[in-house]
């Protein structure tokens, strides 16, 4: 059986497709606005003419590449290519600004690789158990998870926790625009049809990060045209980084796999949670935001950890773990395969080929990533007077191509100007994104839980998982305070 799968997954043409898929995925992931889901969806029609192994492994290649690719633009240009790398941008760009772009990219590449490999092993070894665990999640658990995610705001809000908290709430409020999931009522749409499905958070993200960053570049532009290009000397992590990378990858790769296996929770949430947890575990948490290596390694290993996790519900239950897995299910059905428990029985070789393919895709990602770090960093040599207009153009095209809707461009632009204003007063825009991602999840699951319990509030404390998250929420609120008190006591002694 394994030999069949190896023969299937390691055909030269499959390997070629996967290689191209990973490379294309990295390219799509780099570009702001082209998300992982979109990249996979774009490739989908091409796969209709292929056989099952070619088709699914090409898609997996694009998936793995795109999740990693987002970190490249996040580090180099402070412009996360996908929402999953928004957390990486915080410290990644700070390192690049220090002239350590190569080192940052190296750390992100190797962490992504290790996170992906770890999730692969979880997928192969314990996926039925993880699926069982994921099915325990119902509305109250999702609500608790969302609130736990929102607690991370305090870690990413930068200078002032109060303002960060307000920005997060602002994001939550923006997310309530549109037709309400639960009651079907249109809220705050002002009769505008484009607002019926809400404000898409991708254009908001492009505006807040990419556009505002471009405005900052305009401000810093010197008429001489060329800023002193910092020479990229190293493309690999330093010796002392390796221990840190292995530690973070094993912790946060596992975390990413678990989060990925929960249907409906994706790489964006995983990477923010990893950032927040890494900060609260760290001994030098006050340095976060100034270019700490842990803060790149943790979210990157978590978001690539999601790739394997997201395949678990798809393979074991036939339900998608995230939007990308939903497209893969479509691809498999077109091939006449039914994802789900029957796939293990009827097409074991395809399942094993997917396992092997995921491992190989991660290896390709490592090779392409490391060999082209120098190439990527060339982007910093491009004169800002040329690079900035290109970013303007990409912001426009990226937000437009999401839904072929000009309205998204307007949203992007408004948030671009707003993001520039936030940058001027040194307020971090990350909490807004987090609020936008987690706000709807918190609200709809809160109300769904009450519907399902017929109005009983004790539903939120009815299972072990809810209690687990509740305790985590308490810890993440009070642990930083406790740490401060302890360090004060110590210094007093």
């Amino acid at each position, binding site marked *: 059986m394994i030999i069949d799968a190896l023969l299937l997954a390691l055909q030269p043409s499959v390997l070629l497709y996967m290689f191209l898929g990973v490379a294309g995925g990295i390219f799509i992931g780099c570009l702001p606005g082209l998300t992982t*889901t*979109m990249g*996979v*969806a*774009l490739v*989908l*029609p091409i796969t*209709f003419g292929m056989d099952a192994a070619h088709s699914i492994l090409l898609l997996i290649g694009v998936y793995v590449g795109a999740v990693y690719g987002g970190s490249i633009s996040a580090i180099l240009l402070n412009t996360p290519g996908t929402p999953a790398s928004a957390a990486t941008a915080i410290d990644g760009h700070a390192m690049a600004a220090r002239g350590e772009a190569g080192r940052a990219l190296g750390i992100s590449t190797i962490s992504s690789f290790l996170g992906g490999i770890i999730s692969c092993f979880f997928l192969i070894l314990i996926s039925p158990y993880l699926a069982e665990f994921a*099915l*325990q*999640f*119902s*509305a109250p658990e999702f609500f608790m998870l969302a609130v736990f995610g929102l607690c991370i705001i305090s870690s990413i809000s930068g200078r002032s926790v109060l303002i960060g908290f307000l920005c997060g709430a602002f994001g939550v409020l923006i997310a309530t625009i549109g*037709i*309400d*999931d*639960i*009651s*079907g009522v*249109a809220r705050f749409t002002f009769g505008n*049809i*484009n607002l*019926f*499905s809400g404000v*898409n958070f991708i254009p908001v993200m492009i505006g807040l990060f990419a556009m505002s960053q471009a405005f900052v570049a305009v401000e810093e532009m010197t008429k001489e045209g060329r800023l002193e290009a910092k020479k990229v000397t190293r493309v690999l992590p330093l010796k002392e980084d390796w221990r840190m990378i292995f530690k973070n990858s094993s912790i946060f790769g596992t975390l990413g796999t678990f989060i990925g296996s929960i*249907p*409906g929770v994706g790489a964006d949430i995983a990477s923010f949670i990893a950032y927040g947890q890494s900060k609260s575990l760290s001994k030098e948490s006050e340095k976060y935001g100034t270019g700490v290596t842990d803060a790149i390694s943790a979210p990157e290993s978590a978001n690539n950890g999601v790739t394997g996790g997201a395949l678990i*519900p798809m393979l074991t*239950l*036939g*339900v*998608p773990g995230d*939007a990308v897995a*939903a*497209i893969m299910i*479509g691809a498999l*059905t*077109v*091939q*006449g395969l*039914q*994802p*789900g*428990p*029957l796939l293990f029985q009827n097409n074991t070789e395809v399942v094993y080929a997917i396992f092997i393919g995921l491992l190989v895709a991660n290896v390709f990602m490592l090779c392409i990533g490391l060999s082209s770090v120098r190439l990527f960093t060339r982007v910093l040599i491009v004169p800002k007077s040329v690079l900035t207009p290109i970013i303007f153009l990409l912001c426009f095209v990226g937000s437009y191509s999401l*839904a*072929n*809707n000009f309205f998204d461009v307007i949203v992007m632009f408004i948030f671009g100007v707003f993001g520039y204003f936030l940058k001027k007063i040194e307020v971090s825009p990350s909490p807004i994104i987090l609020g936008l991602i987690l706000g709807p999840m918190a609200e*709809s699951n809160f109300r*769904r839980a009450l*519907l*399902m319990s*017929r109005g009983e509030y004790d539903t939120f404390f009815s299972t072990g998982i809810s209690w687990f998250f509740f305790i985590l929420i308490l810890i993440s609120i009070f642990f930083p305070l406790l740490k401060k008190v302890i360090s004060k006591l110590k210094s007093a002694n």
Partner: protein
Amino acid sequence: MKNKIKSLLISSLVITSATMSYAANNYPENAVRIIVPYSAGGGSDSVSRALAEALKPKFPEGIAVENRTGGAGSVGMSYGMHAKPNGETITMVAPELVMLPHSGNGGDIDYKKFKHLAIVNSGYAAITVPADSPYQTLDSLLNDAKDKNLLFGNSGTGSIWHIAGVGMEKAAEVEFTHIPFKGSSAAITSLLGKHLDAVSVSYAEVASQVDAGLLRTLAVLAPHRLIDAPNIPTAKELGYDVAIGTWRGYSVPLETPDYIVNYLTDAILEAAESDEFKTFMAVSNNDIDIIGPEEFEKKVQREDTFYAELISGL
């Protein structure tokens, strides 16, 4: 003089009709696009892409699918409704076209502003429970629903599968607690985790779990038994007069000239019969259901009044 004017008029008429027939021969002059109001990778998208593939021989300049998502489909359908009526923009429409306006969430979409060409596919709701659920038949489920307020999952308030659940409860004169989810797969996942008593999403969406023995479909809300599931009874057979389902049709703006409408209708009907489209639909669990323009027009009108009643009663 009079004669001269007459002949001039006639000749100009002849010329215009000649140019018109010339234009008729000339359509499709440019690339044609199919607006799909749902996201890439979903059912509507893949059916439309497969149809576009089968239509290719008829459109030498190319035919492509364009996703314009948002507002449960209203954004894309509104865009297609306002497109230039030159046959270069075809819109995929679904029951949402006649459902959303009644809940006030449709923006300006109006089925009367479309010329409807053909329906190629339909799918019906199925009442599905977990495999180890105590309910073996639809009757036992509905009997319990009388005093137990069962949890009924659907794909979002106001969505077609929510309406299906409502239609079921009306037909059986019981009341469910409807639990809306964002999309069918989230509802199915929750059902798999046994957090719900039943779901009312389409059979195609639960088919793989039903085949694997994780879920059990008690009845389909269809006018006839489904080809994929000949053993599952319809609600009608069991004595509940309810049949609710979705369909995927193609329409153009109302002002589109007749020769283009005819060309497109013929092309779509022919493509839907093609072998490659049939194979695709078979492997992707979609049922082919071809409905021509007249019947399509009537169906839309019928469903408009049907949903107006059902939705206003929510």
